[in-house]
């Protein structure tokens, strides 16, 4: 028994020191899961791209419960992983506590601002990207009613909805935007059955384009929309391929680029707040073979025009999170 203990202890110590020597970067996925075909999967793709290009490895963990957040962060920091990248707003408060304890480790958080000297906070101008897909939705809609299905009801998702509604109203001021949130707990990121039913409810209210900003729940939304032969809009990753010809477009949020950049720059990366918007291709809309037939030249022209105006500052898209209100839609 004692020999076994010593052996195990030695192995553990070896594993720890080798981890510290390599200083591998680490990536922590949020509760939606690594393969949510959306937000977390985009982060994984970015890390994967980095690993393939450099031939290095990275550590990763997929959270399964709220209680693991702090534990996972501390584990990676203790084990010498550097930088530690995490996806999701929910890490905000935890990272605020953990970061000061590990001043030599660099952290990067996506979708949240944490004010600490060793933290890079990456936030996206989702309202701008959502504005563009909102315009596309309004132009593709025949009924004049479009839908929005959010995941967990948090300000960030309202920001998506608000940008989307503004884009819709910019094309068709009389259009109706039906917005629903899936729930108020993290389970709302992973409830495709409810997502599908919400979609059917929106279809019965006349919606013929539905935008899902709901992580794994969105899979159910896109499925229900394809079943009913209406259009849907994916989010974060390019989801056009899920139902070719029935997904109008996807609101891209280049989480992959953010993770790739953080990994490439390593522990010496610049900390502070990094805002990625339309100007630096941090957000955008996806066009590929699967949806090329759905997007006409007029639509492309109108959206590209709007994009240029937003980048130049001529058109201002209201950010819900700036004042917790939205001019285009009530919640």
């Amino acid at each position: 028994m004692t020999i076994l203990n010593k052996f195990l202890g030695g192995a553990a110590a070896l594993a720890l020191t080798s981890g510290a020597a390599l200083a591998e970067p680490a990536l922590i996925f949020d509760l939606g899961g690594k393969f949510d075909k959306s937000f977390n999967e985009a982060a994984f793709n970015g890390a994967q791209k980095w690993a393939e290009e450099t031939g290095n490895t990275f550590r990763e963990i997929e959270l399964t419960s709220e209680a693991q957040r702090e534990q996972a962060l501390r584990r990676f920091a203790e084990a010498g992983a550097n930088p530690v990248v995490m996806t999701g707003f929910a890490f905000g408060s935890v990272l605020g506590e953990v970061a000061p304890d590990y001043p030599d480790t660099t952290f990067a958080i996506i979708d949240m601002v944490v004010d600490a000297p060793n933290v890079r906070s990456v936030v996206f101008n989702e309202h701008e990207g959502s504005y563009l897909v909102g315009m596309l939705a309004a132009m593709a809609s025949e009924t004049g009613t479009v839908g929005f299905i959010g995941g967990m009801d948090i300000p960030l998702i309202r920001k998506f909805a608000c940008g989307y509604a503004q884009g819709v109203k910019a094309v068709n001021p009389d259009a109706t935007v039906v917005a629903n949130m899936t729930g108020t707990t993290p389970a709302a990121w992973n409830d495709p059955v409810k997502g599908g039913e919400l979609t059917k409810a929106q279809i019965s209210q006349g919606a013929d384009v539905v935008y899902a900003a709901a992580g794994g729940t969105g899979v159910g939304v896109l499925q229900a929309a394809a079943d009913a032969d209406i259009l849907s809009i994916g989010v974060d990753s390019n989801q056009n391929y899920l139902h070719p010809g029935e997904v109008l477009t996807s609101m891209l949020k280049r989480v992959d680029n953010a993770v790739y950049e953080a990994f490439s720059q390593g522990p010496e990366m610049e900390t502070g707040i990094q805002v990625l918007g339309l100007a630096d291709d941090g957000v955008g809309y996806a066009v590929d073979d699967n949806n090329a037939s759905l997007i006409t030249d007029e639509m492309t022209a109108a959206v590209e025009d709007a994009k240029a105006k937003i980048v130049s500052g001529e058109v201002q898209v209201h950010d819900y999170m700036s004042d917790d209100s939205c001019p285009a839609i009530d919640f």
Partner: protein
Amino acid sequence: MDYLTLLQILDTTVRLATPLLFACLAGLVSERAGIFDIGLEGKLLMSAFFSAAVAATTGSVWAGLAAGVGASLVLSAIHGLASITFRGNQLISGVAINFLASGLTVLIAQDWFGQGGRTPSLSGDARFNEITLPFAQSLSGLPYAGQGYTELISGHSLLVYVGLLTVPLIWWMLYRTRFGLRLRAVGENPAAVDTAGVSVLRLRYTAVAIAGVLCGLGGVYLATGLQAGFVKEMSSGRGYIALAALIFAKWRPWYALFACLLFGFFQALSFRPDVVERVARIDIPGQFLDALPYILTVVILAGFVGKAIPPRAGGEPYVKER
């Protein structure tokens, strides 16, 4: 609220009530025989996963159905073994089954498909598609009755109709057959059944197996009817709501149907805040509607609306007197 909107909400109600109904009837048969079944949630999840996985692999929803029901039966057998043969605590065995299903499904799915605990999307013959009943098209022009037939009664997947037919079947089995009489007796006073020379163990195992089949059908419907594929934790508490419905229904089949429809109706309403606001003239949060099944169950348990008395021998392993 116009007639068509009402029909649409009722249509959603029927779809959402079906998995609840299967699980609730499963719990009913099991608990009437004196075996409490907290593991409904786990069985739903396990059968949802295996039905989706096998349907995705073979392309046949019937193979998926068999696999889903089989998986649920295996869990039932474990529950039976722990709580009938080994006389363990039924609640603990049920909770263990829930944990087992929650972890095992994701683990197997990841190993099998490598998509992070989900199965590929099902399409075509790998799903229970919606059935259009005869005359649905020609009758849709008729106001009220015709519309109701087309919108509400026609156009569900096969398992919805199976679920609705199961209710009279279970009722008939429980109250009109010798087997049903014995089943009810074994949940009230197993010693009397044993004295009459009928095997308590066999009766209880049969009841648990029937529960396994019913729960399995509920899970299959979740993954291949309501949705097209399995996603981790996709049962999302439906097994627990079914337990609440069971108490609400006071362990009776017809009441169970109405309880499940009522709870399904609350869920359907929470999807249409616009209608709720128009009818009630105040803004009722969706979360309140989601919580209503639990609130109503507490009200029932507190004894405000009649008494809900569980089968007397429920939860107690049977020990032969020597």
